[in-house]
């Protein structure tokens, strides 16, 4: 058997140099070079520096872009063969749409690289090392394993290193652990996980105080911080629901367009038409089928939704996240600052013997004094003339403030605290020594579990002292449980009188005996007022809220109950999972526990968030995850929607997230969800609107190729609709406010399509057919009144032909006015949404009306679009298209609504697609 399997933190400091093949005087230059050649420089490995090229290429060569590019190329070729047909302009327009779409998608994807940039900033530029027996400053990138690193106050650590010498060394490991308290470092060998070891200094962390010498054992992306960076870089996120849908829309619509174009091209060739005419047909069919304006409209709708969300304190960093937020099934939320205000206040001061509040002022003063001796606060600057401010750990600040309220400024206690033992993360306690003339007091404060074994006596609020026997300690356990169950953070305070000041080098352990328990303090972080209602809204919207916290299970449970995450009748043992149990569970087992209803995770570490996200995804759920620390970054990247805290979060978390909560408030997430749901509904509305005009654009080509009649609509006229008049009303539809019941419905099904069969039937076979029939009817009416006869060919410049195509185009545009009003409501007429409530839509309608007139009567527009005037009676007839479109659509909605109401209730209930019970 392997007798002494050890890692670097488990060996004595004296063995470190030999094991890492180094020496006290440091490495030699050849040794440094050999090691750098082996492991590379000490920096986080970014993706290839040419990655931006591949990303750019990916977006320029996707299906949609290629189609538009080919169409543009054909236009340029056609223009070269037969100039003056407007094909060059068409080519440029298509190319412009293609390039803009690709550039926009590229810019979105490259944002992800910024989190890595922020992480790189955690490493210093230069460091002090000992090499070849001499101290020198080198680039941090040049560090290699075995290098002797010299640490001093204010340094940022550049690599993971094992300490061999320390002098009062205190570091802040917050980037790795999320724990804001400082950690004292020593050289003694320890057991357990290396990340918790107090003899290791980690890259990216700060030296707050003291000096030290350490030997580097991991560099670059092999450091603990580097692993977070690597995971954040590599973690794979599936396409967002919206990306999938847009991909599908592009695939379906372009397939339809290409197949139809090729079919009619082949038919044209077989029927003996000229190649030029066939090319024009093919292009016309393709251009008519591809809704060129749809993707830009979609992007604009998301952008404008993100502006609205910013007003609700939700800053959107990745546009698709707007819609993803509307699709989520689960929100995993932090506690502190998100559900609570992050304002600790002392609300209970409890006698350890009787379990009642301490009333006696002397006992209270003694309790607070002991607590302050074991604290580290610094006076701060008040922004106004109110009470003095303190800076430091939130608990210590709360203590100083409360002491000030009760007994006046605590400056004397601070000044006479001669020694401080910083908070030990592993032991979960901190201490101090107070000396005031003849009185010397050692005081300690921390978690009750941590202090319990050290307690020798208990002191009551009345000054009575009893021995700490089993019964007395059991009584204390009950007090702690009771306070925790109220959602309070509990700290125990104990002290011991000393005969004289201890030796300045005496270890803390030598003083931690025979302690007298002075009492318990309960600290409350009040829940934000708006949170319970926001949780209830999420519940009504079929969204589950999971609480993930590092707090004690009782505290977590109490907060979850107060927020409504746990119902009053929910049994805690089935709903609350402890971090140690979570660690043991496999992903599949965790998924089962989640399916069974676990919704509170206590005593968790930030790394465990990743596991929770993976298990939720195994259930097929769309997950939103909140986070603020550097070590939350991988989980933020892995979730479908990563939500960072704007006020308290780190830059890395903010860069990694899709969404930033500017006020750290959970209620803002709920507001964002409603907006996200509205976005999806609005997308369906404007997709229907845009697709409806495709049919009256296609039908003229079909008629033209099948019958001996003139072409009722030219390619440039089609583009005038798709990239011109349709855009503004479509954008207006993207601005529609949420439907009143959007937060009373469950999240949309995972298989619910943006481009559903129902939507296509409505757009193509109903709305499109009406538009096509009426516009083509007016086309032939103009021709007929102008003396045209069946089979007669008309030249492109013939005034009669130009008037006829003009009325076709004007009719389509006017009928789109009726269409856009109807689209505003899924079930109502559309007028019920208020005529003046959507200004962009109103502007779009006005533009359509104006443009329908200009097409026919303004010479420059006539010349550009090759149209001509018609009689005012004919133009008035085109206006009939508006009520025709709107009226028939309304009749359809009533009929569909009646049919749906007749359906049995069961068929209306839509499963969420989630494998978890509804909340």
């Amino acid at each position: 058997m392997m007798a002494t399997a050890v890692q670097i933190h488990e060996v004595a400091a004296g063995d470190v140099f030999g094991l890492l093949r180094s020496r006290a005087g440091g490495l030699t230059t050849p040794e440094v070079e050999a090691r750098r050649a082996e492991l590379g420089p000490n920096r986080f490995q970014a993706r290839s520096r040419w990655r931006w090229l591949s990303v750019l290429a990916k977006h320029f060569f996707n299906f949609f872009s290629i189609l538009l590019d080919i169409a543009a190329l054909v236009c340029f070729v056609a223009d070269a063969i037969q100039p003056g047909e407007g094909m060059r302009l068409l080519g440029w327009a298509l190319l412009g749409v293609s390039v803009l779409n690709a550039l926009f998608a590229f810019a979105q994807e490259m944002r992800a690289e910024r989190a890595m940039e922020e992480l790189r900033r955690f490493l210093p530029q230069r460091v002090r090392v000992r090499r070849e027996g001499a101290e020198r400053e080198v680039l941090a990138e040049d560090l290699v394993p075995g290098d002797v690193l010299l640490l001093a106050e204010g340094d940022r650590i550049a690599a993971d290193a094992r300490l061999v010498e320390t002098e009062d060394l205190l570091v802040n490991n917050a980037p790795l652990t999320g724990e804001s308290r400082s950690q004292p470092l020593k050289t003694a060998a320890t057991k357990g996980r290396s990340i918790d070891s107090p003899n290791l200094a980690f890259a990216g962390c700060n030296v707050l105080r003291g000096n030290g010498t350490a030997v580097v054992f991991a560099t670059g992306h092999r450091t603990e911080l580097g692993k977070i960076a690597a995971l954040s870089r590599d973690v794979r996120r599936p396409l967002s629901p919206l990306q999938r849908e847009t991909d599908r829309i592009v695939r379906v619509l372009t397939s339809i367009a290409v197949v139809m174009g090729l079919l009619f091209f082949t038919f044209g060739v077989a029927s003996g038409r000229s190649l030029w005419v066939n090319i024009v047909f093919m292009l016309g069919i393709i251009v008519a089928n591809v809704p060129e304006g749809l993707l830009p409209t979609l992007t604009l709708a998301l952008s404008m939704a993100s502006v609205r969300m910013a007003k609700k304190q939700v800053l959107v960093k990745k546009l698709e996240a707007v819609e993803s937020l509307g699709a989520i099934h689960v929100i995993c939320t932090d506690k502190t600052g998100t559900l609570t205000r992050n304002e600790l206040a002392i609300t209970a001061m409890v006698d350890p013997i009787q379990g009642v509040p301490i009333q006696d002022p002397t006992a209270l003063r003694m309790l607070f004094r002991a607590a302050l001796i074991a604290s580290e606060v610094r006076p701060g600057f008040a922004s106004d003339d109110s009470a003095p401010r303190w800076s430091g750990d939130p608990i210590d600040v709360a203590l100083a403030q409360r002491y000030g309220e009760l007994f006046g400024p605590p400056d004397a206690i601070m000044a006479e605290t001669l020694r401080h033992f910083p908070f030990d993360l592993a032991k979960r306690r901190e201490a101090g020594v107070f000396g005031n003339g003849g009185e010397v007091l050692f005081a300690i404060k921390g978690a009750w579990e941590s202090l319990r074994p050290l307690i020798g006596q208990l002191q009551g609020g009345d000054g009575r002292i009893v021995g700490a026997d089993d019964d007395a300690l059991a009584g204390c356990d009950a007090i702690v449980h009771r306070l925790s169950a109220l959602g309070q953070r509990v700290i125990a305070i104990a002290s011991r009188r000393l005969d004289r000041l201890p030796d300045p080098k005496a270890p803390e352990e030598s003083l931690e005996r025979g302690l007298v328990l002075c009492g318990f303090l309960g600290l409350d972080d009040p829940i934000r007022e708006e949170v319970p209602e926001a949780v209830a809204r999420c519940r009504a919207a079929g969204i589950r809220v999971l609480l993930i916290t590092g707090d004690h299970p009782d505290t977590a449970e109490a907060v979850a109950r107060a927020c409504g995450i746990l119902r009053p009748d929910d049994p805690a043992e089935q709903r609350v999972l402890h971090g140690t149990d979570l660690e043991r569970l496999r992903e599949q087992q965790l998924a089962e526990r989640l399916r069974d209803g676990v919704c509170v995770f206590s005593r968790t570490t930030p790394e465990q968030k990743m596991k929770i996200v993976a298990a939720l995804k195994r259930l097929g759920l769309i997950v939103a995850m909140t986070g603020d620390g550097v070590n939350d970054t991988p989980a933020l990247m892995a979730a479908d929607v990563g939500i960072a805290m704007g006020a308290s979060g780190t830059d890395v978390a903010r860069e990694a997230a899709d969404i930033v909560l500017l006020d750290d408030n959970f209620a803002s997430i709920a507001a964002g969800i409603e907006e996200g749901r509205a976005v999806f509904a609005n997308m369906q509305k404007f997709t229907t609107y845009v697709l409806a005009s495709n049919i009256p654009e296609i039908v003229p080509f079909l008629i033209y190729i099948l019958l001996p009649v003139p072409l009722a609509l030219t390619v440039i006229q089609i583009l005038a609709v798709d990239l011109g008049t349709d855009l503004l009303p479509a954008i207006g539809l993207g601005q529609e406010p949420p439907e009143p019941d959007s937060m009373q419905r469950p999240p949309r099904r995972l298989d619910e399509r943006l481009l559903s069969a129902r939507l296509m039937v409505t757009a193509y076979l109903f709305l499109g057919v009406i538009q096509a029939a009426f516009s083509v009817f007016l086309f032939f009416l103009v021709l007929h009144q102008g003396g045209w006869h069946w089979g007669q060919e008309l030249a492109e410049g013939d005034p009669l032909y130009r008037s006829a195509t003009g009325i076709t185009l004007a009719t389509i545009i006017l009928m789109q006015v009726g269409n856009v009003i109807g689209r505003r409501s899924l079930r109502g007429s559309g007028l019920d949404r208020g005529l003046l409530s959507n200004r962009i839509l109103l502007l779009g309608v006005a533009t359509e009306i104006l443009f329908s007139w200009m097409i026919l009567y303004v010479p420059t527009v006539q010349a550009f679009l090759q149209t001509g005037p018609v009689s005012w009676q004919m133009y008035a007839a085109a206006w009939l298209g508006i009520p025709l479109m709107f009226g028939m659509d309304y009749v359809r909605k009533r009929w569909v609504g009646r049919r749906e109401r007749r359906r049995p209730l069961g068929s209306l209930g839509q499963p969420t697609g989630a494998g978890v019970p509804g909340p």
Partner: protein
Amino acid sequence: MFFFAYDGSINGDWVSHYAVQLAAARQDHRLTLVHVRNGRTSEATLAEKLQRMRGECERHGVRLVEHLLSPVGRSLLDAIRSAVPEGPEHYLVCGTRARGRRNGFLSGTTSEQLLRSGHCNVLAVRVVHPGLLGSPRRLLLPIAERAADFRSGLPFLRLFGPQVSHLHIVLVARVGRGRFRQMSHAFAEGLRSPGQASCERVEQEIVEQLGLGSKVMDALVIVSDEIPREILIAANKTRSQLIYMGASERTPTERFFYGNPIEQVLREATCDVAVYRGIA
């Protein structure tokens, strides 16, 4: 017998921790060091390095036997093979190539030839985290869909066994890129089921063969289009300290289309990587 092919490099020094730890896990507590003098390491340096190694062996109760060979016209491979007896009862630990950026860390090296030769049980190690001192506690064991392939890793895994606190088995079910981007949750779950069954068989076998408790193990099936990348992600997610993977059996055609997963893992891993090929 247990052998360590030592090249005198710094990676060789770091790999020596593994060799010593694994030799200490054997009954005979004996490690035979094979070094072919190549002129790149001076005698003085070699002596200093060997002295350190002796000290480490002593601390672990391992008897170090040194075979310092002189090159006599034979290839390095032949020299090592002549010093290491053939057969499943023999074990050889070696390192990977340094400066592997362009050529790869294993491709074309003596270590790769040793892995392919089937001469004995071979383990090629790349150390990027010298602080582990050859004592990884959390292992990631990527397995192929042919579950039987992992058996050649059992001889060395048995030696790692006593110190292992977590053994994460990961199976990546590969799908095409287009399918991966568009696949539904139900489709992915469908692909996971056979993989899960394979993992269970492997777990069962490890429990029976090595006596590792099932609580130590964890199995994960991932559906993806990029096997090496998923292995790297899994290693980071599980905080694995060693990726313990089998030597690739890919044909040149497969390598052309999919690349060499071992090289990708060796290049980008944030923890140590050990490539095995056992013949037991």
